[in-house]
């Protein structure tokens, strides 16, 4: 395992298209539910323990090399009620796969691209990419969990003109929650071979799903999701 590979994969500047997505923050800001650092923190904490936990579980399972990535991909569909969010996850998966194959060429990534010409879901690609980079399930889980909060935090800096120092302090305050979510995700992923995909977390956030669908219908928006 290489710490350097983890830094490259988790870097916000890794060219995988994530910067174009707000993780539901744009809809929450417009609805007046996120207005500053405290509500951003609440938002991120809620997203982390729901969407973040689900993505981290899937990424960890993919990183373990759980056979049947098609089944994992299907699980993302079942865990994501909003069609707009499913579409966004596939688009992000396609972009990450392109970047991942160029960065860490691997037969597994090539196979994933062949199996999903329209794009596999992002957490499945993330876990497979982590594996190609020589990383393990915990690394994949941390990457997935972290980006469910770093995306909104960065977006809110642009959306509200929030002080970037404050936004970063929010992320630091989520540290213990990130550890907890990544650990739970890895435990669940290890149970998959025995218990099947039902062992993976399925936590949902109704307002994120509702907001995601509504946001996709806006005529003008700053972020893609």
């Amino acid at each position, binding site marked *: 395992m290489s710490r350097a590979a983890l830094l490259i994969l988790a870097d916000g500047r890794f060219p995988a298209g994530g910067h174009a997505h707000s993780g*539901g923050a744009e809809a*929450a800001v417009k609805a007046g*539910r*996120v207005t500053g650092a405290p*509500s951003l923190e*609440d*938002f*991120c*904490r*809620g*997203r*982390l*323990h*729901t*969407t973040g*936990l689900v993505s981290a579980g899937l990424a960890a399972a993919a990183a373990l090399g759980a056979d049947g990535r098609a089944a994992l991909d*299907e*699980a993302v*569909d*079942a*865990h994501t*009620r*909003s*069609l*707009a969010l*499913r579409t966004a996850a596939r688009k992000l998966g396609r972009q990450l796969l392109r970047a991942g194959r160029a960065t860490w060429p691997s037969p597994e990534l090539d196979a994933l691209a062949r199996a999903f010409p329209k794009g596999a879901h992002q957490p499945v690609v993330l876990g497979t990419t982590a594996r190609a980079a020589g990383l393990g399930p915990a690394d994949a889980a941390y990457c997935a969990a972290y980006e469910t909060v770093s995306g909104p935090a960065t977006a809110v800096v642009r959306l509200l003109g929030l002080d970037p120092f404050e936004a970063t302090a929010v992320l630091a305050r989520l540290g213990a*929650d990130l550890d907890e979510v990544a650990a739970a995700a890895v435990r669940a992923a290890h149970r998959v071979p025995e218990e099947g*995909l*039902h062992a993976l*977390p*399925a*936590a*949902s*956030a*109704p*307002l*994120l*799903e*509702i907001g995601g*669908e*509504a946001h*996709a*219908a806006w005529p003008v928006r700053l972020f893609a999701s």
Partner: protein
Amino acid sequence: MTSSAPAARALAPAGVRATARVTARPDGRGGTALPVLQGEGPLALRRTRAAGPAAHVLLVGAMSGPLGGDHLTVEAATEPGAHLRVGSAAATMALPGQGEASPEARYDVRLTVAADSTLHWLPEQLISVRGSALHVTTRADVAEGGHLILREEQTLGRTAEPPGLLRSRLTVRHADRVLLDQELACGPGAPAGWDGPAVLAGHRAVGQLVVVSPEFRTNPPAAAVLGEHATLTPLAGPGILVTAVAPDGLRLRRILDEARERWT
């Protein structure tokens, strides 16, 4: 455990275990028969009069609950050609058990829908009462060609009351594929952020309507916004899902009823 003193037994969590079952089958005369209609303990099932080919069944709570430590199961199944509609006589209240540390209650619903049959699962709301802890699992298996209409409504606390801990998981399978698998945890003891701006943001009622129908395979409705806090979304298969949050159960019902009239 060797502790068999009467006092210890009285203090031990004595939860109720009960299962209610209903199976629907065509009666050969254009209607639906119920070869199995069996309640147990606090779960009673009553067939009610209804016009048309469907059998109507009401789930009647013969005791309050579920209380902490209880484990209730309801199983409803349709055979090919049958039409069944299940409702409940009143809201289900998740109540605290006796004692400070009463264990979590469980409520499991198992629905099986055969080809060319219809199951309407339309219970009244579930109310999570202060101090209660309930884990609900609902699992529906729909065969190719089966129709399912499922409504789930949860209200967090009675009027102006904080809720108990409510964890629920809804899994809908169609043929060999999982169409929907969702978990929601709210109340004290749920993971942080459950009442924050990403999850419920102070709303006290949350619900969903799932419709699985072979017609959606060729003609799925487009995703739609049904109001400020409600959306319709096509699932990755022949089904749709309406998700809504509302300030209270009444307003939630209005949204889900409108959707049911429009898409079923």
